Protein backbone atom coordinates (compact mmCIF):
# COMPACT_ATOMS: atom_id res chain seq x y z
CA UNK A 1 0.00 0.00 0.00
CA UNK A 2 2.84 2.33 0.84
CA UNK A 3 4.26 1.97 -2.68
CA UNK A 4 1.21 3.76 -4.08
CA UNK A 5 1.77 6.65 -1.67
CA UNK A 6 5.43 6.86 -2.70
CA UNK A 7 4.32 6.72 -6.35
CA UNK A 8 1.99 9.64 -5.60
CA UNK A 9 4.92 11.57 -4.04
CA UNK A 10 6.97 11.13 -7.21
CA UNK A 11 4.09 12.15 -9.49
CA UNK A 12 3.28 15.20 -7.35
CA UNK A 13 6.90 16.35 -7.62
CA UNK A 14 6.78 15.89 -11.38
CA UNK A 15 3.45 17.75 -11.56
CA UNK A 16 5.03 20.67 -9.70
CA UNK A 17 8.00 20.53 -12.06
CA UNK A 18 5.67 20.51 -15.08
CA UNK A 19 3.75 23.55 -13.74
CA UNK A 20 7.03 25.37 -13.09
CA UNK A 21 8.35 24.65 -16.58
CA UNK A 22 4.97 25.79 -17.96
CA UNK A 23 5.43 29.03 -16.02
CA UNK A 24 8.95 29.56 -17.37
CA UNK A 25 8.04 28.75 -20.98
CA UNK A 26 4.61 30.26 -21.43
CA UNK A 27 4.27 33.21 -19.05
CA UNK A 28 5.45 36.42 -20.76
CA UNK A 29 6.49 38.37 -17.66
CA UNK A 30 10.21 38.08 -16.84
CA UNK A 31 9.67 38.23 -13.05
CA UNK A 32 7.11 35.40 -13.29
CA UNK A 33 9.66 33.37 -15.23
CA UNK A 34 12.21 33.90 -12.41
CA UNK A 35 9.72 32.76 -9.77
CA UNK A 36 8.81 29.65 -11.80
CA UNK A 37 12.49 28.89 -12.39
CA UNK A 38 13.25 29.02 -8.65
CA UNK A 39 10.32 26.66 -7.96
CA UNK A 40 11.58 24.21 -10.64
CA UNK A 41 15.06 24.25 -9.06
CA UNK A 42 13.69 23.62 -5.57
CA UNK A 43 11.52 20.75 -6.82
CA UNK A 44 14.52 19.01 -8.33
CA UNK A 45 16.35 19.42 -4.99
CA UNK A 46 13.43 17.91 -3.11
CA UNK A 47 13.35 14.93 -5.47
CA UNK A 48 17.05 14.28 -4.84
CA UNK A 49 16.59 14.48 -1.07
CA UNK A 50 13.60 12.17 -1.28
CA UNK A 51 15.69 9.63 -3.19
CA UNK A 52 18.19 9.64 -0.30
CA UNK A 53 15.58 8.97 2.36
CA UNK A 54 15.73 5.74 4.38
CA UNK A 55 12.40 3.93 4.74
CA UNK A 56 12.82 2.40 8.21
CA UNK A 57 11.00 2.85 11.52
CA UNK A 58 12.96 5.80 12.93
CA UNK A 59 15.50 7.16 10.42
CA UNK A 60 18.16 9.43 11.94
CA UNK A 61 19.65 12.59 10.41
CA UNK A 62 23.28 11.92 9.30
CA UNK A 63 24.72 13.53 12.45
CA UNK A 64 26.46 11.56 15.20
CA UNK A 65 24.94 12.67 18.50
CA UNK A 66 28.10 12.32 20.63
CA UNK A 67 31.70 13.55 20.31
CA UNK A 68 33.14 10.26 21.64
CA UNK A 69 30.95 7.52 20.19
CA UNK A 70 31.40 3.88 21.21
CA UNK A 71 31.86 1.20 18.55
CA UNK A 72 28.23 0.10 19.05
CA UNK A 73 26.94 3.66 18.60
CA UNK A 74 28.74 3.99 15.27
CA UNK A 75 27.31 0.68 14.04
CA UNK A 76 23.74 1.54 15.02
CA UNK A 77 24.25 5.02 13.51
CA UNK A 78 25.29 3.51 10.19
CA UNK A 79 22.21 1.27 10.25
CA UNK A 80 19.72 4.06 10.95
CA UNK A 81 21.13 7.26 9.41
CA UNK A 82 19.76 8.77 6.21
CA UNK A 83 21.94 8.97 3.08
CA UNK A 84 24.16 12.14 3.47
CA UNK A 85 25.41 12.40 -0.12
CA UNK A 86 22.24 13.87 -1.72
CA UNK A 87 22.14 16.42 1.11
CA UNK A 88 25.72 17.54 0.45
CA UNK A 89 25.00 17.87 -3.28
CA UNK A 90 21.71 19.71 -2.70
CA UNK A 91 23.45 22.38 -0.62
CA UNK A 92 25.68 23.07 -3.62
CA UNK A 93 22.56 23.11 -5.84
CA UNK A 94 20.82 25.60 -3.54
CA UNK A 95 23.84 27.91 -3.62
CA UNK A 96 24.02 27.81 -7.41
CA UNK A 97 20.23 28.32 -7.81
CA UNK A 98 20.58 31.32 -5.51
CA UNK A 99 23.43 32.75 -7.60
CA UNK A 100 21.37 32.31 -10.79
CA UNK A 101 18.23 33.92 -9.35
CA UNK A 102 20.18 36.88 -7.92
CA UNK A 103 21.84 37.48 -11.28
CA UNK A 104 18.52 37.13 -13.14
CA UNK A 105 16.96 39.74 -10.85
CA UNK A 106 19.66 42.26 -11.70
CA UNK A 107 19.35 41.41 -15.38
CA UNK A 108 15.59 41.99 -15.26
CA UNK A 109 16.15 45.42 -13.68
CA UNK A 110 18.60 46.25 -16.47
CA UNK A 111 16.06 44.95 -19.01
CA UNK A 112 13.39 47.22 -17.57
CA UNK A 113 15.77 50.16 -17.76
CA UNK A 114 16.49 49.51 -21.45
CA UNK A 115 12.98 48.61 -22.68
CA UNK A 116 10.63 50.08 -20.11
CA UNK A 117 8.67 46.85 -19.92
CA UNK A 118 9.12 43.35 -18.57
CA UNK A 119 6.68 41.71 -20.95
CA UNK A 120 8.65 39.34 -23.12
CA UNK A 121 6.50 39.95 -26.22
CA UNK A 122 6.71 43.74 -25.95
CA UNK A 123 10.48 43.55 -25.59
CA UNK A 124 10.65 41.57 -28.83
CA UNK A 125 8.53 44.18 -30.55
CA UNK A 126 10.71 46.99 -29.27
CA UNK A 127 13.73 45.11 -30.51
CA UNK A 128 11.98 44.92 -33.88
CA UNK A 129 12.02 41.12 -33.86
CA UNK A 130 8.52 40.12 -32.74
CA UNK A 131 5.36 40.91 -34.63
CA UNK A 132 2.76 43.18 -33.02
CA UNK A 133 0.54 40.09 -32.47
Amino acid sequence: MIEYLILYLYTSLFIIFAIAVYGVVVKPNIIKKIIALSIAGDTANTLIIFLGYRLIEYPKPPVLPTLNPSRGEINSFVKEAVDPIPQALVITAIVINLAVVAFLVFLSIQLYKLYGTLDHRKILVRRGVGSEA
Partner: protein
Amino acid sequence: MEKLLIYTLLLTLFVGGIVVAVSFNVFGGSPSGIIRSLALFYLENMYNVYAKTFWAASPEAVNAILWDYRGLDTIYETTVLYTALIGCLAIATGLEKKFRPKEPGLTIIVKAGTRIVVAIVILVSLVLAFRGYITPGGGFQGGVAFAIAPLLLIAAYSWRRLEELGFRLDKAVLLRSLGLAAIALIALAPYMLGGYILQNQFKPWIVFAGAPYTIWVFYIGGTLLFLNISEFFVVSMEFLMIFILLSIIYVGGEK
Protein backbone atom coordinates in the same frame (compact mmCIF):
# COMPACT_ATOMS: atom_id res chain seq x y z
CA MET B 1 2.05 26.78 -34.31
CA GLU B 2 4.05 28.00 -31.33
CA LYS B 3 1.28 27.06 -28.90
CA LEU B 4 1.34 23.51 -30.26
CA LEU B 5 5.10 23.31 -29.68
CA ILE B 6 4.78 24.45 -26.07
CA TYR B 7 1.93 22.12 -25.23
CA THR B 8 3.67 19.10 -26.79
CA LEU B 9 6.77 19.94 -24.74
CA LEU B 10 4.72 20.07 -21.57
CA LEU B 11 2.81 16.91 -22.45
CA THR B 12 6.02 14.96 -23.04
CA LEU B 13 7.49 16.32 -19.82
CA PHE B 14 4.37 15.31 -17.91
CA VAL B 15 4.14 11.81 -19.39
CA GLY B 16 7.92 11.33 -19.06
CA GLY B 17 7.64 12.29 -15.42
CA ILE B 18 4.94 9.73 -14.78
CA VAL B 19 6.95 7.01 -16.55
CA VAL B 20 10.06 7.81 -14.52
CA ALA B 21 7.98 7.92 -11.32
CA VAL B 22 6.54 4.49 -11.98
CA SER B 23 9.93 3.05 -12.92
CA PHE B 24 11.51 4.45 -9.74
CA ASN B 25 8.88 2.68 -7.77
CA VAL B 26 8.94 -0.64 -9.63
CA PHE B 27 12.69 -1.30 -9.31
CA GLY B 28 12.62 -1.80 -5.56
CA GLY B 29 11.55 1.75 -4.92
CA SER B 30 14.27 4.28 -4.31
CA PRO B 31 13.61 5.19 -0.67
CA SER B 32 14.05 1.73 0.83
CA GLY B 33 15.41 0.29 4.04
CA ILE B 34 19.00 0.08 2.78
CA ILE B 35 21.06 2.98 1.41
CA ARG B 36 23.80 2.93 -1.18
CA SER B 37 27.16 1.44 -0.21
CA LEU B 38 28.91 4.76 -0.94
CA ALA B 39 26.83 6.43 1.76
CA LEU B 40 27.75 3.62 4.16
CA PHE B 41 31.44 4.44 3.54
CA TYR B 42 30.91 8.08 4.49
CA LEU B 43 28.74 7.28 7.51
CA GLU B 44 31.21 4.64 8.70
CA ASN B 45 34.42 6.62 8.26
CA MET B 46 33.56 10.24 8.85
CA TYR B 47 33.95 10.12 12.65
CA ASN B 48 35.34 6.65 13.24
CA VAL B 49 37.71 7.32 16.15
CA TYR B 50 38.76 3.65 16.10
CA ALA B 51 40.03 3.57 12.47
CA LYS B 52 41.28 7.04 11.60
CA THR B 53 42.65 6.41 8.10
CA PHE B 54 39.73 8.06 6.31
CA TRP B 55 38.13 10.01 9.13
CA ALA B 56 37.11 13.67 8.73
CA ALA B 57 37.14 14.85 12.38
CA SER B 58 33.48 15.93 12.17
CA PRO B 59 30.51 13.99 13.54
CA GLU B 60 28.30 15.81 11.04
CA ALA B 61 28.21 13.92 7.73
CA VAL B 62 27.09 16.74 5.46
CA ASN B 63 29.78 19.15 6.64
CA ALA B 64 32.43 16.42 6.52
CA ILE B 65 31.48 15.65 2.90
CA LEU B 66 31.18 19.32 1.93
CA TRP B 67 34.50 20.53 3.31
CA ASP B 68 36.70 17.46 3.57
CA TYR B 69 35.80 14.65 1.18
CA ARG B 70 34.38 16.93 -1.59
CA GLY B 71 36.13 20.15 -0.59
CA LEU B 72 37.01 21.20 -4.15
CA ASP B 73 33.33 20.92 -5.05
CA THR B 74 32.52 23.52 -2.40
CA ILE B 75 35.39 25.75 -3.50
CA TYR B 76 34.01 25.81 -7.05
CA GLU B 77 30.49 26.37 -5.76
CA THR B 78 31.75 29.39 -3.82
CA THR B 79 33.41 30.72 -6.98
CA VAL B 80 30.10 30.32 -8.85
CA LEU B 81 28.35 32.43 -6.22
CA TYR B 82 31.27 34.88 -6.31
CA THR B 83 31.20 35.38 -10.09
CA ALA B 84 27.40 35.66 -10.17
CA LEU B 85 27.49 38.45 -7.60
CA ILE B 86 30.38 40.15 -9.41
CA GLY B 87 28.00 40.21 -12.40
CA CYS B 88 25.31 41.78 -10.21
CA LEU B 89 27.83 44.38 -9.00
CA ALA B 90 28.78 45.17 -12.60
CA ILE B 91 25.16 45.67 -13.63
CA ALA B 92 24.36 47.76 -10.58
CA THR B 93 27.24 50.16 -11.21
CA GLY B 94 25.70 50.87 -14.62
CA LEU B 95 22.36 51.95 -13.11
CA GLU B 96 21.83 55.38 -11.60
CA LYS B 97 21.89 55.55 -7.81
CA LYS B 98 19.36 57.50 -5.80
CA PHE B 99 20.22 58.29 -2.21
CA ARG B 100 16.82 58.82 -0.65
CA PRO B 101 16.57 61.38 2.20
CA LYS B 102 16.57 60.03 5.75
CA GLU B 103 13.18 58.35 6.15
CA PRO B 104 11.70 58.33 9.67
CA GLY B 105 11.26 54.52 9.61
CA LEU B 106 8.35 52.77 11.26
CA THR B 107 6.85 53.30 14.73
CA ILE B 108 8.77 52.93 17.98
CA ILE B 109 7.15 49.58 18.75
CA VAL B 110 8.31 48.09 15.47
CA LYS B 111 11.79 49.50 15.97
CA ALA B 112 12.08 48.01 19.46
CA GLY B 113 10.76 44.66 18.25
CA THR B 114 13.13 44.66 15.30
CA ARG B 115 16.10 45.33 17.53
CA ILE B 116 15.33 42.20 19.56
CA VAL B 117 14.63 40.06 16.50
CA VAL B 118 17.80 41.24 14.74
CA ALA B 119 19.87 40.34 17.82
CA ILE B 120 18.33 36.84 17.85
CA VAL B 121 18.84 36.40 14.09
CA ILE B 122 22.51 37.31 14.40
CA LEU B 123 22.93 34.96 17.38
CA VAL B 124 21.29 32.06 15.52
CA SER B 125 23.43 32.67 12.44
CA LEU B 126 26.60 32.72 14.57
CA VAL B 127 25.64 29.42 16.22
CA LEU B 128 24.85 27.87 12.81
CA ALA B 129 28.19 29.00 11.39
CA PHE B 130 30.50 28.38 14.35
CA ARG B 131 29.08 25.00 15.41
CA GLY B 132 28.36 23.89 11.87
CA TYR B 133 30.83 21.02 12.02
CA ILE B 134 29.27 19.41 15.14
CA THR B 135 25.55 20.13 14.90
CA PRO B 136 23.56 20.65 11.68
CA GLY B 137 24.49 23.99 10.12
CA GLY B 138 27.57 25.34 8.39
CA GLY B 139 29.18 28.36 6.83
CA PHE B 140 26.61 28.89 4.10
CA GLN B 141 23.57 28.38 6.37
CA GLY B 142 25.02 30.80 8.95
CA GLY B 143 25.85 33.40 6.29
CA VAL B 144 22.41 33.25 4.70
CA ALA B 145 20.73 33.44 8.11
CA PHE B 146 22.88 36.47 8.95
CA ALA B 147 21.83 38.14 5.68
CA ILE B 148 18.26 38.50 6.98
CA ALA B 149 19.35 40.87 9.80
CA PRO B 150 20.16 43.95 7.63
CA LEU B 151 16.87 43.42 5.79
CA LEU B 152 14.91 43.80 9.01
CA LEU B 153 16.92 46.95 9.79
CA ILE B 154 16.18 48.35 6.31
CA ALA B 155 12.49 47.62 6.76
CA ALA B 156 12.06 48.99 10.28
CA TYR B 157 14.54 51.85 10.33
CA SER B 158 15.76 52.92 6.90
CA TRP B 159 18.69 52.30 4.66
CA ARG B 160 20.36 55.39 6.10
CA ARG B 161 20.33 53.92 9.62
CA LEU B 162 22.00 50.80 8.29
CA GLU B 163 24.80 52.95 6.91
CA GLU B 164 25.30 54.71 10.23
CA LEU B 165 25.56 51.28 11.87
CA GLY B 166 28.49 50.62 9.59
CA PHE B 167 26.95 48.27 7.00
CA ARG B 168 28.49 50.06 4.01
CA LEU B 169 28.97 48.73 0.48
CA ASP B 170 32.74 49.06 0.30
CA LYS B 171 33.15 47.45 3.73
CA ALA B 172 30.92 44.55 2.63
CA VAL B 173 32.91 43.97 -0.53
CA LEU B 174 36.19 44.21 1.41
CA LEU B 175 35.12 41.73 4.09
CA ARG B 176 33.90 39.36 1.43
CA SER B 177 37.24 39.37 -0.38
CA LEU B 178 39.01 38.81 2.95
CA GLY B 179 36.80 35.78 3.60
CA LEU B 180 37.50 34.37 0.15
CA ALA B 181 41.23 34.92 0.63
CA ALA B 182 40.99 33.09 3.97
CA ILE B 183 39.27 30.11 2.31
CA ALA B 184 41.98 30.02 -0.36
CA LEU B 185 44.69 30.20 2.30
CA ILE B 186 43.19 27.41 4.39
CA ALA B 187 42.81 25.33 1.25
CA LEU B 188 46.40 25.88 0.13
CA ALA B 189 48.09 25.62 3.54
CA PRO B 190 48.16 21.77 3.65
CA TYR B 191 49.38 21.77 0.04
CA MET B 192 52.33 23.94 1.00
CA LEU B 193 53.09 21.64 3.94
CA GLY B 194 53.34 18.57 1.73
CA GLY B 195 49.73 17.37 1.78
CA TYR B 196 47.06 17.81 -0.92
CA ILE B 197 44.77 20.82 -1.32
CA LEU B 198 42.09 21.04 1.37
CA GLN B 199 43.55 18.17 3.35
CA ASN B 200 42.05 18.02 6.79
CA GLN B 201 43.32 15.01 8.73
CA PHE B 202 46.48 12.87 8.60
CA LYS B 203 46.58 10.29 5.82
CA PRO B 204 49.12 7.46 6.31
CA TRP B 205 50.45 7.77 2.73
CA ILE B 206 51.03 11.57 2.90
CA VAL B 207 53.72 13.40 4.87
CA PHE B 208 51.41 16.24 6.04
CA ALA B 209 50.61 15.74 9.73
CA GLY B 210 46.96 16.87 9.43
CA ALA B 211 45.29 19.85 11.06
CA PRO B 212 44.83 19.52 14.85
CA TYR B 213 41.28 18.60 15.67
CA THR B 214 41.31 19.66 19.33
CA ILE B 215 42.88 22.81 20.78
CA TRP B 216 43.29 22.61 24.59
CA VAL B 217 39.75 21.56 25.50
CA PHE B 218 37.85 22.82 22.43
CA TYR B 219 37.01 20.43 19.61
CA ILE B 220 37.67 22.31 16.34
CA GLY B 221 37.55 19.52 13.77
CA GLY B 222 40.77 20.32 11.88
CA THR B 223 40.27 22.91 9.13
CA LEU B 224 36.46 22.60 9.16
CA LEU B 225 35.86 25.32 11.77
CA PHE B 226 38.02 27.91 10.00
CA LEU B 227 36.53 27.07 6.61
CA ASN B 228 33.05 27.49 8.04
CA ILE B 229 33.92 30.84 9.65
CA SER B 230 35.39 32.27 6.46
CA GLU B 231 32.45 30.93 4.41
CA PHE B 232 30.14 32.65 6.92
CA PHE B 233 31.89 35.98 6.31
CA VAL B 234 31.84 35.49 2.54
CA VAL B 235 28.15 34.64 2.24
CA SER B 236 26.84 37.18 4.76
CA MET B 237 28.82 40.04 3.24
CA GLU B 238 27.77 39.00 -0.27
CA PHE B 239 24.09 39.30 0.54
CA LEU B 240 24.62 42.49 2.48
CA MET B 241 26.23 43.87 -0.69
CA ILE B 242 23.28 42.67 -2.80
CA PHE B 243 20.67 44.22 -0.53
CA ILE B 244 22.52 47.54 -0.31
CA LEU B 245 22.81 47.58 -4.09
CA LEU B 246 19.14 46.72 -4.58
CA SER B 247 17.99 49.41 -2.17
CA ILE B 248 19.95 52.25 -3.76
CA ILE B 249 19.82 51.56 -7.53
CA TYR B 250 17.05 53.47 -9.28
CA VAL B 251 15.46 52.83 -12.68
CA GLY B 252 13.90 55.75 -14.56
CA GLY B 253 10.14 56.45 -14.54
CA GLU B 254 7.55 54.90 -16.89
CA LYS B 255 8.84 54.80 -20.44
